[in-house]
């Protein structure tokens, strides 16, 4: 006998210890998509929810440049509000997702009035004298403040803001770098902060520090990827434009500087015109390529689309003296894609396949269900095939084996497949033609008989 459990527990059993619940809440947040605010909210939630550490309120600072800036405050503002929230949160079986969702609303509501006040809580960490709460971040140590009224190290502004006598400052540190700070207190219940609370809270702070760090890294990586892609694109575009420009420039300069007979003048002008058209074509394709964005994946029925594709006059013209053969299952599940991009991608592949197939050769396009989740569409040509080196290069931008190819066609297909959460594979050997396998995700929606 086997039993199955979900990866994320939906609710906590009442016997689970506080520590266990806290770790569970945080662990679950690792499943969430990267959003700094949401992930930090998870930590603040863990610190404040009754089932977690159980502080009343938590205030978050983030390091911005050399300053420590208050960003988010979670917690009720009055005993009445506290009562309402806590009774809601102590509902048995309430899961992490609900708690976070609830807290997100609470924070959003609170932030409107809080924002100007939080803005004022900003500390220069490089100042000669750094006061509490910023001191904890600067020294990278946890500070428990009791009798804040009498403590000269506590910043007056901050004391007026929290209106509480006892609070705990938790620095957020990762790789020895200050990321921020969280200040927690029991401003509503005035319960004392125990050593056990501090231990648990410090664990939360460690995780929060890493959250901030990871998010920064992630943002940096995204930025770098974007820049790299842009740089590559710019290099390729400039190369692509250079050949026609050099040709146009060279022949124009011949016309300008050297006497030429009627025939040669005509020829030069014809070449210039042809290269200008080539430039237009490149610009059109590049802008078209850059524009691909599929906003919404729709269930599409591929059968009629494939049928109409092979009847397209442009392909029919290309397929003259060749055989273009479509085979598809009687019943095909719908797939998730965009119909226009789907058609363009398939046409692109067929166009290539027909280009490399010699007269009398065959091009097959087949569509069959692979299993319940995937539909497999294959396109096979009877061209010369690709060696290993070429196979590696075919998806590189501007790689083309055609004289007037832009080298964007297959890249376009790949982009479309990525956006449809599909896969593309290529099989090819010199002398054996090339086989493209496209896997599309099957939509849940059934095709009506």
């Amino acid at each position, binding site marked *: 006998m086997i039993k199955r459990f979900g990866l994320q527990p939906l609710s906590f059993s009442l016997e689970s210890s506080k520590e266990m619940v806290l770790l569970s809440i945080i662990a679950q947040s690792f499943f969430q998509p990267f959003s700094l605010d949401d992930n930090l909210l998870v930590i603040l939630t863990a610190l404040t929810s009754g089932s977690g550490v159980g502080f009343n309120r938590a205030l978050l600072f983030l390091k911005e440049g050399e300053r420590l800036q208050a960003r988010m405050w979670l917690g009720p503002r009055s005993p009445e509000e506290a009562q309402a929230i806590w009774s809601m949160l102590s509902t048995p079986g309430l899961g992490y997702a609900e708690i976070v969702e609830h807290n997100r609303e609470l924070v959003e509501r609170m932030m409107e009035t809080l924002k100007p006040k939080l803005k004022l809580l900003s500390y220069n960490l490089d100042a000669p004298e750094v006061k509490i709460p910023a001191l904890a971040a600067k020294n990278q140590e946890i500070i428990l403040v009791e009798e804040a009224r009498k403590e000269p190290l506590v910043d007056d502004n901050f004391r007026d803001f929290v209106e509480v006598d006892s609070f705990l400052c938790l620095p957020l540190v990762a790789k020895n770098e200050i990321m921020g700070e969280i200040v927690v207190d029991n401003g509503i219940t005035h319960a004392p902060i125990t050593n056990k609370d501090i231990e648990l809270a410090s664990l939360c702070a460690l995780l929060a520090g890493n959250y901030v760090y990871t998010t920064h890294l992630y943002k940096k990586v995204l930025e770098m990827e974007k820049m790299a892609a842009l740089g590559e694109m710019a*290099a390729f575009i*400039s*190369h*692509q434009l*250079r*050949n026609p*420009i*050099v*040709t*146009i*420039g*060279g*022949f*124009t*300069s*011949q016309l300008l500087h050297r006497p030429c007979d009627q025939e040669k003048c005509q020829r030069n002008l014809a*070449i210039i015109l*042809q*290269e200008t058209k080539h430039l237009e074509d490149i610009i059109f394709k590049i802008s078209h390529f850059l524009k691909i964005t599929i906003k919404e994946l729709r269930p599409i029925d591929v059968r009629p689309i494939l049928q109409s594709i092979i009847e397209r006059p442009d392909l029919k013209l290309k397929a003259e003296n060749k055989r273009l053969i479509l085979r598809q299952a009687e019943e095909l599940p719908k797939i998730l894609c965009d119909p226009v991009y789907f058609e363009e991608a398939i046409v692109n592949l067929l166009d290539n396949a027909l280009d490399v197939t010699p007269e009398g050769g065959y091009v097959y396009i087949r569509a069959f269900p692979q299993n319940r989740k995937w539909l497999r569409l294959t396109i096979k040509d009877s061209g010369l095939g690709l060696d290993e080196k070429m196979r590696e290069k075919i998806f590189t931008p501007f790689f*083309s*084996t*055609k*004289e007037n190819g832009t080298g964007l066609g297959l890249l376009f297909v790949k982009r479309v497949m990525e956006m449809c959460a599909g896969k593309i594979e290529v099989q090819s050997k010199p002398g054996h033609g090339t086989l493209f396998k496209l896997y599309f995700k099957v939509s849940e929606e059934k095709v009506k008989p």
Partner: protein
Amino acid sequence: MKKILLVEDEKALSLLYEEELEREGYEVVVAYDAESALEQIRKEKFDLIITDIRMPGRDGIELIASIMGLRKDIPIIINTAYQSYKDDFMTWAADAYLIKSSSLDELKNKIKELLEKSSS
């Protein structure tokens, strides 16, 4: 008359180079890909080779490697639209690396310079 092998897959561009270099008094043989370029080199003797890098089939870098295997004494000029191949150490085997330009002066000067060097 000095004989130059020009390896360039763009038809219009190779026509331009061919005409311009013939005007300079060279004999020009055009090959549209690496394969036919190698065939020519095996058949005839050239005083200089000009090659593009990005071409259908085997690229200019592979071509240079093959030429080095056949005969090392022919000066080679890489004439390409790509700046980035400069970092590929195989391109160092060439005697010059030029970026394609609509003014052919730099190419013409380089050819003259290399031919003078090799004949002296």
